[in-house]
């Protein structure tokens, strides 16, 4: 009995010491984390003030040249605050609206150089400055407990769900959303882009689920005999589609087909893969035969990537006017290495065909345009989306440069009319 009591007392003592140690460790971690968050909040608050000042500075000038530095500051500070805000535990609706507002504010300031009418800029930014001041005040109130150390992490989290006056996060989120809609409404290009994404421009007739299944069977006869379910998309989907699931032999997967027109959005099949590998040429021929048989006839091969079990192919649509590639209209194919079968198709971008407009092509002298050690290895025409979400005809150049004994390869994309460099990307 004595021994038992002895063991029990020692066990309880050991457990208590362990618990106290753990609790202290957790508290230390919690304090350290609170410190980190407080620092991020302070940083965001300070930069919010600087941002508002930068916005006000740009309102001093009539010409965009005078406000160039301040506009650069707006772009930089809005990015910095975005980084701070995205690493803080905040209410979801507030955080998403706030990041969106900051992004649009920064982009508006950046794009202002192009605007010919500075009156419009003045009007928008004057309102944005007013809204920023209101928001800065609310932010100060909402975060005060965290910054002065009065709130623990648990209390902070509880407070996020609270709707008490002074820290109604959801209300702040709604306010910021309204500021975004009033200060920076969608541009025509953004609106077009959203319509395209939501397939709102597609005029095709509705197909039934049976017709969608027939389409699936026509395209993928080897896996479409055992369909285990056909569902329609949920009501919140911006475009209705049929979600068809199958399990045939060892292949399991799905295909999504639009209700409008019965177009394949995407198809993916999973199965155990063999170890042997067909020659690349055979695999590519299979991919191209599939595309031809499926009726995708205006595509050209762009690139391919080998991975453990399959090759991923990218095909790009070519428009007829300039024979230019349209990089927003692509089809992805996944082809199994062991038997060359199509195990994946994604045509969701291809079916949202971009409208491309004719555009002047100004002759460029690449020798003058690039540094003397740059070589233009390949030159093509392509439609590429710029920052303003406009489809622009471009010179799509593949250039090489000697980088300390290694050859660096870049894609340089230049507007054919304005010579604006839309994108420069390092190619691996």
């Amino acid at each position, binding site marked *: 009995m004595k021994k038992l009591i002895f063991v029990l007392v020692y066990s309880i003592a050991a457990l208590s010491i362990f618990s106290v140690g753990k609790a202290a460790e957790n508290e230390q971690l919690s304090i350290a984390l609170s410190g980190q968050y407080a620092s991020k909040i302070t940083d965001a608050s300070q930069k919010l003030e600087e941002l508002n000042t930068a916005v006000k500075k740009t309102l001093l000038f009539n010409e965009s040249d005078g406000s160039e530095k301040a506009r650069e500051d707006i772009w930089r500070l809005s990015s910095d605050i975005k*980084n701070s805000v*995205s*690493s803080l*535990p*905040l209410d*979801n*609706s507030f*955080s*998403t*609206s706030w*990041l*969106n507002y900051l*992004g649009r504010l920064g982009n508006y300031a950046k794009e202002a150089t192009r605007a010919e009418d500075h009156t419009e800029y003045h009007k928008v930014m004057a309102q944005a400055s007013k809204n920023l001041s209101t928001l800065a005040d609310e932010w100060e109130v909402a975060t005060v407990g965290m910054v002065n150390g009065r709130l623990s992490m648990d209390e902070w989290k509880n407070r996020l769900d609270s709707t008490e006056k002074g820290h109604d996060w*959801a209300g702040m989120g709604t306010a910021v959303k309204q500021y975004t809609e009033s200060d920076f409404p969608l541009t025509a290009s953004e609106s077009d882009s959203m319509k395209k*994404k939501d397939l709102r421009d597609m005029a095709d007739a509705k197909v039934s689920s049976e017709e969608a299944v027939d389409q699936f069977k026509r395209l993928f006869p080897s896996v479409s005999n055992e369909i285990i379910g056909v*569902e329609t*998309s*949920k*009501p*919140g*989907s*911006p*475009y209705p589609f049929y*979600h068809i699931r199958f399990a045939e032999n060892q292949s*399991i*997967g*799905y295909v*999504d087909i639009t209700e409008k027109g019965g177009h394949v*959005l*995407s198809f*993916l099949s*999973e199965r155990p893969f063999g170890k042997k*590998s067909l*020659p*690349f*040429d055979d695999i590519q021929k299979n991919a191209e035969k599939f595309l031809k048989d499926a009726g995708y006839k205006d595509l050209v091969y762009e*690139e*391919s*990537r*080998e*991975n*453990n079990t399959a090759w*991923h192919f*990218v095909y790009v649509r070519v428009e007829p006017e300039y024979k230019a590639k349209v990089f927003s209209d*692509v089809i*992805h194919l*996944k082809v199994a290495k062991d038997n060359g079968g199509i195990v*994946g198709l*994604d045509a*969701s*971008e291809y079916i949202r065909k971009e409208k491309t407009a004719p555009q002047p092509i100004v002759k460029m002298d690449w020798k003058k345009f690039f540094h003397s050690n740059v070589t233009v290895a390949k030159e093509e025409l392509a439609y590429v989306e710029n920052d303003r979400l406009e489809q622009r005809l471009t010179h799509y150049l593949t250039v*090489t440069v000697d980088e300390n*004994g*290694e*050859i660096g*390869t870049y894609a340089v994309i230049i507007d054919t009319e304005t010579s604006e460099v839309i994108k420069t*990307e*390092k*190619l*691996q």
Partner: protein
Amino acid sequence: MKKLIIRIITVILLLGGVYATSPVQIGAFSSQVVTRGAAGDDVIELQSRLQYIGFYTGTIDGKFGYGTYWALRNFQAKYGLPIDGIAGTKTKKKLTDVSKYDEKFVKDNLNKGNKFTHYGGKPLSSQVAQGTGKKDTIQAPSKYSERDIQLMANAVYGEARGEPYDGQVAVAAVILNRVEHSEFPDSVGGVIFQPGAFTAVADGQIWLTPNERAKEAVLDAINGWDPSENAIYYFNPITATSKWIWSRPQIKKIGLHIFCS
């Protein structure tokens, strides 16, 4: 006896026929034509041999990218071969004739994740430096780094390892959709570690070692597949505690997850 001789000749002819029509294997190279976008052992050998004779100065990583492509074209130009940047039978044969390949040295160092080169004319042992660990020979679109892919595989495994394959691809696609979306951070790491964004980050399951299926799912997502149909949120209706998530417009359900915009 006559029959036996005829049989032997028939067998020899048959074997000869099979040999003549089968793809030619050059040295240790497989019979595959090696082209830009390829990955694996043939590319490792190609890069090592090109480096041995000074045409390739990049990292030997088993990924046939532009660096390897230009090196191969220069080699083809030097040896009077058709300049197409593709390692076919003739190119591989010439390369095998004029270079050496220490497969054990290269593979050992690749497996250890060491930094190394394979130049001829100086001892290989002097061309090795300690590395950071094993790296995959994964061919991915250039805008994603190996770290992005690894992080996404961790997130997919931590969040959706019991889900159907397309459910895992969809989770990876949601991460990518967020990176492109104006209301979220603009990097893979920023999206994954945004406080409160993913349960696997909060409960530490993100640090479990992902399996091949999760890695494959990430590869499909970064190569263009999005079974979520442009979703930026998903949740498990059985375990979700946030009321707010139910207010999001729902797109489709895969396995246990509902995907929303």
